[in-house]
């Protein structure tokens, strides 16, 4: 026992406290500067014996009973001891009114979540690729349909997951599927589209957004929008989800018209999709980007070259309009665009010859490239249609260039351009400073999951780009398309106004914007 230490005790008669509370107060007292030992206990015989053994019971403590509270302190000096006793009283009062923390624990696993929320039928999974398959298994085994947004899931995992899903009547949308619309609910990146008679199954995420938004904007609507992930239509996966989705839409009484959207697909998969399309009498539009019109199609099936055409045809079928008349109308629109391009070309310096397309949507980038390669010699890209047109450096455009800014070199460690346009803003200015840039083409994707106001991010850059160009040699053209609806959180017309105010020409679809840009670059 330290020679100069002081022991002080207070006894509070008939003051019951829970022993756990007392142990907590003891702990707090022990942590105080100058306190060598402390004990706060009820005065039963066992505790009193312990106090005596620890030398904590002052000789003058008097008569103590089991219903009395004892606070005993040994401290370096009397002041420290008195302070500690006062603190004990304060703590005991405070403990009796402890506040409880709000909020509940979030589950750490899908299984835990499903137990807490029975009846859950869809899982949206966007964890890093190495963990994604395991999460998808948990969801499938629990009977959930899955939107697997994550990339970098192995091919073997995709095949195994889809085999199980198909066998059990579940959708495994993805990996790499950014969009789905189920029963009117937008999952992942999706637009607020009207309900209606058109069902869409798409191996292209922004393709599903563009088609569904265009259909909705034309006054029709969507039953279901099923994403499959881009690799679904490879030979290895065999279009498992696409065929499953197509069949489900064929069996769905609410779906009257079906649109199938795909980026480059393997030929055997296309043939299987066509075969499946023919098993139903429902009008079916195949928007197979980059596929030649060489297939023998069943009578209910037509092919569309662009998402714009696919949407227009779907609406026409849904309304029982004359298909040839619709095609003629689309042709007339394209002639108008061409004529408009000739006029626009007058305001641009002849030395400015090239298109620079800066895309946030991979499908939209690809659609533009297919349209441009029909009239332009070569279109360079970081995600080219043919490898010979691969840009040596994604950061430097050359000739006609289409950049998919959602590709990995732009998104590694950074947000996707649908969420954050900062990289695209820099690139717009970079292209404007290039004296050969005639047209900058931008896609602006709205909807759930996207940036809350992308136009406001892009508008200053558009205005500055036009300033840079006009100050030097006669200006350039900024053409934009918006994938979105009035019902989207960002509001289609509000976004359009912002872009137009900054000097952009806003077209009604990505295809129309690409056609205009292409015609300006090559008015011939």
């Amino acid at each position, binding site marked *: 026992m330290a020679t100069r230490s002081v022991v002080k005790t207070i006894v509070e008669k008939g003051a019951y406290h829970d022993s756990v509370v007392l142990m907590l107060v*003891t702990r707090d007292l022990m942590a105080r500067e100058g306190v060598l030992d402390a004990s706060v206990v009820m005065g039963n015989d066992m505790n009193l014996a312990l106090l005596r053994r620890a030398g904590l019971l002052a000789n003058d403590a008097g008569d103590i009973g089991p219903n009395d509270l004892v606070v005993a302190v040994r401290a370096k000096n009397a002041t420290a001891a008195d302070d500690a006793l006062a603190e004990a009283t304060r703590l005991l009062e405070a403990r009796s009114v402890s506040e*409880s923390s709000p909020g509940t624990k979030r589950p750490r696993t899908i*299984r835990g979540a499903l*137990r807490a*929320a029975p009846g859950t039928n869809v899982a949206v999974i966007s*964890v890093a*690729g190495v963990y994604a398959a395991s999460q998808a298994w948990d969801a499938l085994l629990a009977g959930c349909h899955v939107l697997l947004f994550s990339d970098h899931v192995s091919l073997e995992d995709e095949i195994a997951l889809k085999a199980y899903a198909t066998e059990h009547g579940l959708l495994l949308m993805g990996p790499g599927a950014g969009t789905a619309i189920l029963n009117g609910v937008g999952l992942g990146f999706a637009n607020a589209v009207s309900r209606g008679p058109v069902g869409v199954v798409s191996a292209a995420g922004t393709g599903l957004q563009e088609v569904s938004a265009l259909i909705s904007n034309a006054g029709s609507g969507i039953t279901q929008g099923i994403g499959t992930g881009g690799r679904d239509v490879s030979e290895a996966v065999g279009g498992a989800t696409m065929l499953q989705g197509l069949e489900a839409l064929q069996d769905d009484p609410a779906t009257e018209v079906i649109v199938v959207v795909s980026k480059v697909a393997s030929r055997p998969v296309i043939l299987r999709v066509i075969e499946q399309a023919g098993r139903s009498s429902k009008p079916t539009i195949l928007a197979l980007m980059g596929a030649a019109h060489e297939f023998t199609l069943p009578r209910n099936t037509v092919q569309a070259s662009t998402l714009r055409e696919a949407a227009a045809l779907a609406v026409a079928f849904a309304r029982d309009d004359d298909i040839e008349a619709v095609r003629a109308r689309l042709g007339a629109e394209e002639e108008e665009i061409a004529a408009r391009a000739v006029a626009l070309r007058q305001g641009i310096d002849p030395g400015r010859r090239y298109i620079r397309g800066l895309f946030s949507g991979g499908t939209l980038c690809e659609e533009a490239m297919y349209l441009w390669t029909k009239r332009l010699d070569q279109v360079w890209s970081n995600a080219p249609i043919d490898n010979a047109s691969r840009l040596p450096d994604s950061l430097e455009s050359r000739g006609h260039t289409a950049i998919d800014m959602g590709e990995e070199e732009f998104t590694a460690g950074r947000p996707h351009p649908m969420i954050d346009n900062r990289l695209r803003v820099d690139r717009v200015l970079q292209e404007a400073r290039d004296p050969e840039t005639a047209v900058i083409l931008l896609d602006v994707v709205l909807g759930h999951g996207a940036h809350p106001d992308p136009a406001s991010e892009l508008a200053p850059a558009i205005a500055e780009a036009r300033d840079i160009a006009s100050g030097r040699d006669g200006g350039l053209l900024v053409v934009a398309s918006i994938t979105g609806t009035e019902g989207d*959180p960002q509001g289609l017309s509000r976004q359009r106004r912002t872009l137009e105010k900054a000097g952009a020409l806003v077209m009604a679809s990505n295809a129309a914007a690409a056609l205009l840009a292409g015609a300006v670059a090559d008015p011939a």
Partner: protein
Amino acid sequence: MTTVNALFGKPVKVVNVGLSGFAESLASQGVDVIDVDFRPPPIAVSRLSRTRSGADVEAANREAVRRIVSGQAVVTGLALARDVIPGMNGRILLHAGPPIQWDRMCGPVRGAVMGACLYEGWAGSPEEAEALASSGGVRFDPCHHHHTVGPMAGVVSPSMPVWIVENPTFGNRAFCTMNEGLGKVLRFGAFSPEVVERLRWMADVLFPALDRAIRAIPDGIDIKALIAQALYMGDECHNRNKAGTSLFLRAVAPSLARTSSNGDTLARVLALIDANDHFFLNLSMPAAKVLTEPAEGIDGCTIVTTMARNGTEFGIRVSGLPGRWFTAQAGEVEGLFFPGFSAADANRDLGDSTITETAGFGGMAMACAPAIVKFVGGTPQDAIDATLEMYDICAAEHDTFLIPNLDFRGTPVGIDVRRVAETGLSPRLNTGIAHKDPGIGQVGAGLLRAPMDCFASALRAIEAQGDGESSPTGAGGHPGEET
């Protein structure tokens, strides 16, 4: 053919894992969405769903949980250990936790061993007892190898009376000594004359009185039902047994009175039970043991059937690998201490009482016990969160042990080593704290988590005899796949 269409037209209810923005935009569309707090697994784990021998892990685990949940636990009487516990012949002492010999035993277990030697009359003094125990004169074996569980040191000697708890559904029995009370007691390593004296009184007076009373009750006393009721009354039946003790006293008292010929003895027995808030622990533990044992030895099963500590090591056993212990160093308890004691006095985690968590109560049912929430951080919400967290690592929810606070949801039951490894969440344990030196006794109580290492090595061992081709991301995994 397809049932995808079954989804069409139904309300969409979503679980989101990953980007929280997706959950927010669903919520803004008025959709019911639950957002998982995903964290990458702390150790590389494969997705084990089928062993190489073809056992379906999910099916095996469902069977294990079915057995644990559907069993019964009825106390039918008491007997001397040597008369009922298999293998209690000669100089043998059972102890808590995984196997251990004298040289590695912690202080309180050594103290209890010495006390038991004195109690049995194998030694005349503590010194003789120590000499006997340390020279190989006593055989040591884990309680768990003899259908027995023991709180803290868990030392059981042949002449000690033990509860007999039966599981009529599966025809097995489990055993446990009677609770001695708090303070200087054998289970916390105390061996002074008063400790041994109390043990003798328990054997001479308490044992026959209780045994007569219980045997006079047709079909015994249903301990599982008492646990279920005690959970409604603020116990979790591991660290808090006030309600359970009261319920047991209510159940046994009339028969005690009827079968007692001596009013003084009756009063002493009733007073002893009444004065010991933990009397029921030594019934809830063998109940947990008798409920979990039928789940042992199911091929391919990854459900934990034993968690136990000997004060030196923490050990678990998994159903699919019966008899095999996976151990790690026993943890240090985050605790609150009795007057005069601090963390410096505390022994490492000790006792078989974690059989309660294994059976789906104790720490699993923390949400039931707001009175002891100070151990888990302070507020009733913390207690609820502690239980909610355990749902993530358990295979099922109990159909009898229900939690009023959680809208009568079943307690988490069936710890799955796969999920422990995957989430990095190891079971939460409630426990008492023994002094690290022999002879002193209990110094506090608190909580801790089971060490991750033994769950990870159990999982690896099952993998080694199982689906070796599954990739870390899990191609191997689903139940339909043959490998």
